[in-house]
């Protein structure tokens, strides 16, 4: 717990976590794109391409629509801040996150919602019909994912006796309160995976590679952005993807994560973490190649399935425990 950690150590660890999340995230997007390219029999850009893209965007002059207000220019910073802060609540390479005391899973969901809220506003602010369309669609997708997400994590939280992510991960990594029957976990994992795809705007919910007005959701909201504003938003969405992958990897398979703060454990933790994340990125890339994007009003069915799965996970937990 944080109470017995010196404050300096906590700050260093928090900053290290922020640096890992911020610096690794573009390469995950690069990896997903590479996997997709290889599966489509293309060579594809290098894994590090997103860094170059970001650098280019940062150097470009931003063009801002004349119809907008300060909401439009403030949004990239708010989205970036809320996404990184949400990431700080998830254990990354060490199971004991210093900011564990600051918020549990509900706080994480609502922090991400803060970013969504401002992104929806920014989409409307541009005055262009595309932005409004993206905002409207994002709103319905977000509405249906969040209950499923809260239910899924809660099913797991019950096993660990905590809704604080760090405590869940730490206990699971040390095999405390291990369950004999993993079915609640399986249900919750499936639900959370669907939620992750929806929240990060991946196929089959949204397609990050498209700019076709009929299909886009997330990209439509960003359509009026350029220059460093766009760079920050792209970066934030890469971080969001990484946060969800981290959540899945560490909540369901935390083994290997550093449970103590020794240099050896931390090194191993970081290496294992990167391997897990890379594995999940491969999976996402594969899914993107195997499935077509769903129609918007079919997405609701998928998210309904996620919610039911999470609820079943909860039910199983109580049934099995009696």
């Amino acid at each position, binding site marked *: 717990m944080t*109470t017995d950690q010196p404050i300096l150590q906590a700050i260093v660890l928090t900053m290290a976590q*922020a640096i890992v999340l911020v610096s690794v995230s573009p390469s995950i997007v690069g990896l997903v794109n590479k996997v997709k390219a290889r599966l489509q029999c293309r060579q594809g850009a290098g894994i590090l391409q997103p860094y170059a893209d*970001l*650098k280019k965007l*940062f*150097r*470009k*002059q*931003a063009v*801002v*629509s*004349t119809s*907008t*207000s300060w*909401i439009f220019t403030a949004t990239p910073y*708010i989205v970036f*801040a*809320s996404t990184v*802060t949400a990431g*700080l609540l998830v254990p990354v390479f060490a199971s004991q996150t210093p*900011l564990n005391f*600051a*918020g549990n899973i509900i*706080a994480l*969901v*609502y922090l991400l*919602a*803060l970013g969504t809220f401002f992104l*929806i*506003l920014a989409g*409307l*602010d541009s*005055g*262009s*019909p595309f932005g*409004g369309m993206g*905002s*409207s669609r994002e*709103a*319905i997708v977000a*509405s*249906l994912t969040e*209950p499923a997400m*809260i*239910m899924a994590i*809660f099913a797991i939280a*019950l096993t660990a006796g*905590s*809704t*604080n992510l760090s*405590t869940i991960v730490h206990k699971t990594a040390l095999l405390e309160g291990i369950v004999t029957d993993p079915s609640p976990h399986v249900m919750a994992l499936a639900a959370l995976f669907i939620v992750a795809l929806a929240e990060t705007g991946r196929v089959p919910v949204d397609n990050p590679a498209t700019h076709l007005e009929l299909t886009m959701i997330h990209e439509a909201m960003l359509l009026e952005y350029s*220059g*460093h504003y766009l*760079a*920050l938003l792209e970066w934030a969405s890469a971080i969001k993807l990484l946060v969800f992958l981290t959540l899945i990897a560490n909540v369901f398979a935390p083994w290997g994560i550093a449970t103590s703060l020794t240099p050896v454990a931390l090194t191993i933790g970081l290496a294992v973490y990167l391997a897990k994340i890379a594995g999940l990125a491969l999976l996402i890339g594969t899914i993107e190649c195997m499935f077509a994007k769903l129609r*918007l*009003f079919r997405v*609701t069915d998928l998210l309904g399935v996620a919610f039911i799965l999470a609820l079943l996970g*909860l*039910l199983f937990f109580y049934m099995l425990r009696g």
Partner: protein
Amino acid sequence: MAIPLLIILVSYAAGLLLPLCFPARPKIQNLMAHGLAAFASVGGIGLGIVGLFAPEPLSMSVPSTIPLLTFSVRLDALSSFFLLTISLIGLTASIYAMGYVTVFYGRISIALLGSLYNGFLLSMTLVTLADNGFLFLIAWELMSLISYFLVVTEHEKADVRYAGLFYLIMTHAGTAFIILTFLLLFQGGGSFSFDAFRHPEQPLPDDMRTLAFVLALVGFGTKAGIVPLHVWLPYAHPAAPSHISALMSGVMIKTAIYALLRVYFDFFGGQFPWWWGFVVLVIGAVSALLGVMYALMEHDLKSLLAYHSVENIGIILLGIGAGMIFHSYGLDELAALGLIAGLYHTINHAVFKALLFFGAGSLLYATHTRNMEEYGGLLRRMPWTGAFFLIGAVSIAALPPTNGFVSEWLVFQSLFLSYQIPSLLMKLMLPIAAAMLALTGVLALTCFAKAFGISFLALPRTSHAKHAEEVPWTMRIAMGVLSAVCLALGLAPILVVPTMDYVTASMIGISIGDKMLALDGWALAPVNVEFSSLSSPALGLALAATAALGLALVALYGGTSARRYSRPWACGVNLTPRMEYSATGFVQPIKRVFNTIYQPTVKLETEFLEESRYFAKRRRFEFHIEPIFQTYLYDPVIVFMSRLADRMRIVQGGSLHLYLAYMFVTLVVLLLAAL
């Protein structure tokens, strides 16, 4: 207590009478009425704080010549908390009103409006203070009647009169149930004093207690606006002047929450079976979800806010219902948590709902319309109002680190801690309520993204919006104060939670304040720090630090922060307001996904050119959603009542001889009965 209370009552009374002494001087009337109300509210805040921290409840009593009625008042922690909330909103509403009522100069009597306004605040104050059932009912009835008169301030409009009538009938139906509740409680001790209700000589039998529970729930629930008794809110709240709407929506409906807590935890001493709590919980969950769903489809900004009151009353009742369930299972620490969550949300909702109604009032003041589709681009024209409205919107959407988030988080925790309840049904039902709350939360986010986005962003949609001007400084100050309170209540739960703890400790006798404040008060931990914790100041700091990181990244990457302004690309034509997403369009996907609830009817009429069926001359699009409760619940009752009234008319023949015959028959019957 006597002297401060006297000062408050005298100031309100002065505010009630003095404006009437200056006919035809609206400026003086305005200053006098609202100045005195503000002064009295400051006194109310002071008395509330004193009452909260007083070791013993303060009470005093003045006997009266009317049987069963004594003018006795009592200020315990629960009343103090509600008095404080009412007075805080009363103070800001008074400041706001000084600017806002100027639109009514020359149209309606400011003296009457100001005088009724003071009477309204006075009656609400008395409702929280009353320690006698009779006095309570008088204050309650005054509150209902005065608020009715305030609702029909602009009575020259037909829809306002309709709204007023609807409200009057609903609130009186509610009062009837409340009177029945009190009559039942009266059976126990033969006195209307609250003390006799608390410690009856012969306790009520169980079925009578159950009946009292239901009657109180229906009676006070009507005022609180629980589903399905909520139908009057979206009529009455928008019709009233905006500072009155803020008071009605922010605090008047909370007096019902006060009364419910008073009846269940004080009069019944917290002795009730689990299913009472479960009923409250279910009503809370349904009200929260349906409230926000109907709000989404509403494009009249003030009606939208009224529906959100239904939602937030639902959230409050979720906390209280969970508290009642825990209490009935003897889990008193968790019960205290649920109640603290409910009370915290009560003051939060009062603050941000008043702020949002002030914002809506400012828009009405500046544009003379409540229809969101006619706004647009107002953030540039009204930067202060816009910024304050945004803070209110973020708070009501429960986004961190504002106050709405903290209290909603606490409600979530109390629902999640249900795994400690021995009953499997409750174990499952409380998390399902949490899922409904999660859906409610996101839909509220969507709704306020719509409300703020359509009203304040992009291009002005009409000339009203184009020529809107920022509102007077008194109105801005009132909104600014409430915005600051929103942030303070969110960032400093360390100050709020111990206060709520006093209240709940006085209700169920267990204090969890120390347990809830972990890490020297930096983090909130609902009972068990292992299970969950939240630190809104830390989240606020982290958000600020990471935003700074974003700025640093821009600088680090050698990024230019220079920007160029340009018109957005609209496929080759100039962007006009007609191309923007409308509020109706924005919520269309939601309408479609939840069409079982909305049962929308869509009508599209197209008139084609004579030459070709391919070119439309005119299109007319109409859509409305089925008001299910009105159609299936209220309309049959209304039809039945008016038919009954028609039948009864036969009795009233209009002939004097007939009436004399009635009297004679009655007399004979009575005489026979007496024999």
